[in-house]
Every structure is written in C-alpha cells, then in structure tokens.
C-alpha cells in the first residue's frame, strides 16, 4: 500500500473566510483553538464528524478541505 498522509487547506480557507481565527473556528466546530492548530499542522486527524463540521463552516465539500498527499 502506498504510504500517504492527510493534508488540509484549513489555513487557506480561514484566510478566505475573513481571516477567521483558529479560536473562532474551534468555537464553531466544538474543539479548542489548540486542536484546530494541531489539525492544521497535521498533528491530529479529526473525527469524520468534525471533518464534516469544518467543511460546513466554509461551505465547501470534504475534498476541498482534506486530501491525501504522497509521502
């Protein structure tokens, strides 16, 4: 199996959403600012539920937020 890691565009999406802060996004999806930071840095893969919540906040599909990257 090809080794892949999950990457995300949350930082870019936040910027395009009126420079939304990590704390503001965290509040909308029910996690701490530190957890949003950990997700952005690839240190934590969120649950499916939280992943969908993030996509909902930005009004985009899941594929627009998360994608696989070859290692």
């Amino acid at each position, binding site marked *: 199996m090809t080794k892949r890691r999950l990457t995300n565009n949350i930082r870019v999406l936040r910027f395009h959403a009126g420079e939304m802060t990590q704390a503001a996004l965290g509040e909308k999806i029910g996690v*701490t600012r530190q957890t949003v930071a*950990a997700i952005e840095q690839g240190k934590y893969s*969120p649950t499916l539920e939280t992943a969908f919540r993030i996509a909902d906040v930005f009004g985009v599909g899941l594929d627009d937020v998360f994608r696989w990257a070859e290692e």
Partner: protein
Amino acid sequence: MTFNEKSRWIALLANLLVWGWYFVTVARVLAAGAPDVRWLMAMTVPVIIALTIIHIVAHVVVAILKPSEATSDMDERERAIARNAGATAYHVLAFGIVVAIGTTLFYWSAFVAVNAVLFAFIFAETIRYGLEIVAYRRGVA
C-alpha cells in the same frame, strides 16, 4: 497550551515531588529497619493533604491567568490523548502489580506489600501523565 494540558503538567510535577519524597522516605525507613503499618498511615495523611493543596492552588492560579480556557471539558483530541495514554498506562500498572506481588513473595510484610502496590499505581499514573504531555506536544497518532 490548553487547560487540560496544564492540568497534566500540574499532576505530573505534583506526583514527582510529593510521591517522590514519600518513596525516598519509605526506602530510607526500610533500610533502617522494619516499620509497622501505623507509620504508613501517619505518612499517607500529609501526602494526600499536600497533593490536594498543590492541585487546588495550581489549578486556581492557572484558571485565574486564563479564565477563558478554564474548563476541564475535553474535546475529541484531548479525549483521544487520554484514551491512548490510559491504555498504555494500564499495561504498566498490570506489570507493576505482578512485580509487586512477586516482591511480597520474597520479602513478606504488610508494609512492603502496601508500598509495592502503591508504587505500581503511582508509577503507572505518572507514566500516563507523561504520555499525555508528549501527545499534547507531538500530536496524536
């Protein structure tokens, strides 16, 4: 750093400080002779009082410094961290209990038995806090 991560630091340092002092004292007392269980009772009371005071004071200070984050509610990442660390610490505890039982087979006394089990429990708890802090810093697998 979230409130829960700070809480783990407090618990880790309090454990190392207070229980560290306790077990060093136990080792010294054991080396000097065979104490009875009354000594144990007399020692555990100040240990529990010290731990309670450290935890309360440290958590109040942390909460005052950043009231907006002062909640013990855990989000999904923190729950995952606690779950993973708890699972590993369980094995440490199980191994420690087996070692404690083995110790009492070779050196039987109520004092040694109670302290061996207590050490296994505190050691596993300390490992749990340490693993949680590492996961908070490095990320969750």
